[in-house]
């Protein structure tokens, strides 16, 4: 009986905690946007964060984009050649990358490469009471620490996703045209005929921007909200990666259902 009561109590506490965190996250997001002006006025802070989350993620994005494109090229060729339409390989690679894989996989990589680092940094600053010290010196930690990291992530994400898609198309070309020998002219011309700039490429950019906002917000919030202990920081980092991944995939479904309502 007590075990049952305990279970109910724990579920209730978990639900209250979740609602509490969502409310705090919303207020945090509002304040973050309000102090963004102050922080963007000192642009070099944001530039520094673009370097840490964007430039340092370049290598992993380029390499994984290349490999994803190569796998798509191989698998796509296997399937398409059964129907005698291996020239459509370019269409398959480009559409799946620009619409889905580019934004989603780049955002997942970004969350685990840069998001976790941001959470660790802010969490550790909180644990060692640097944020409190800033407050004492009348420096707003939201404007000085949090907002630059947020905007650094938001600006980096679309660029990384575009780079991922471009590298993926290159990887698909490498496997399809160079190694397997699909006709190069048909590869590019069918791709250009099927991929629409506004419909496919721009929608992909919008997606990656939304993912950037979600991942960056989750990362800075988890860091700011962490329990100020070594264990709390480690738990916050785990939560960043897990909830970013879930947010990306759920948002992807929502955005896709808005953007590609069963057309073509």
């Amino acid at each position, binding site marked *: 009986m007590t075990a049952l009561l305990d279970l109910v109590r724990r579920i209730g506490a978990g639900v209250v905690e979740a609602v509490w965190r969502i409310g705090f996250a919303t207020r945090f997001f509002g304040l973050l946007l309000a102090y963004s002006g102050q922080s963007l006025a000192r642009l*070099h802070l944001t*530039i*520094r964060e*673009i*370097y840490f989350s*964007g*430039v340092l993620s*370049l290598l992993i994005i380029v390499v994984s984009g290349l490999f994803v494109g190569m796998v798509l090229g191989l698998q796509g060729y296997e399937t398409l050649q059964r129907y005698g339409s291996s020239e459509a390989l370019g269409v398959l690679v*480009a559409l799946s990358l*620009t619409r889905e894989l580019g934004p989603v996989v780049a955002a997942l990589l970004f969350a685990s490469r840069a998001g976790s680092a941001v959470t660790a940094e802010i969490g550790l600053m909180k644990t060692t009471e640097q944020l409190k010290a800033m407050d004492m010196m009348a420096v707003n930690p939201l404007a000085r620490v949090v907002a630059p990291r947020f905007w650094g992530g938001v600006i*980096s994400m*679309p*660029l*990384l996703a*575009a*780079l991922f*898609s*471009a*590298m993926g*198309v290159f990887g698909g070309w490498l496997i399809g045209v160079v190694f397997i020998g699909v006709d190069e002219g048909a590869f*590019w011309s069918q*791709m*250009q*005929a099927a*991929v*629409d*700039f*506004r*419909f*496919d*490429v721009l929608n*992909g*950019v919008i997606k990656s921007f939304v993912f950037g906002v979600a991942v960056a917000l989750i990362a800075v919030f988890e860091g700011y909200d962490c329990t100020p202990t070594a264990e709390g920081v480690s738990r916050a980092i785990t939560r960043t990666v897990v909830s970013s991944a879930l947010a990306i995939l759920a948002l992807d479904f929502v955005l896709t259902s808005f953007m590609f309502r069963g*057309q*073509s």
Partner: protein
Amino acid sequence: MSRTSLDLWVGFFVIIGMGALLFLAMKVGNVGTSNFDETYVIKAQFDNIGGLKVRAPVKSAGVVVGRVTNIGFDTESYRAEVTFSLGAGYRFPKDTIATILTSGLLGEQYVGLDAGGDSEMLTNGDAVQLTQSAVVLEKLIGQFMFDKAAETPAN
């Protein structure tokens, strides 16, 4: 405030990000080839549009001159009403024939325009009067079987 090596890296990052986007726009996508800056809209009614889809190309003599923007159903004539936007540079006479064609045996369907000889041109919002429906394979086979059955004498 002075320049730092960090700025160089961020600049490099922004440039290759933009470069990737440009690559997607120019090489992968079809910006400039089928998105016409200025367009005008014309309509056509078909008995059957087959598998025509929105955004399918409108071609004349094999050249893409526009795109299908909307497909609707006219409840008065019980026919499909297809709206397409054509590039402003491509003018067609009033007696142009619109046909629904298929590229290849199993390819996508598109609208073909065959220019007539009228001196008046179609303007924005006009309707093409002469149309030809999509070829429906089932009907074609049905007709072929019917003809075959009619040829063989009954016994």
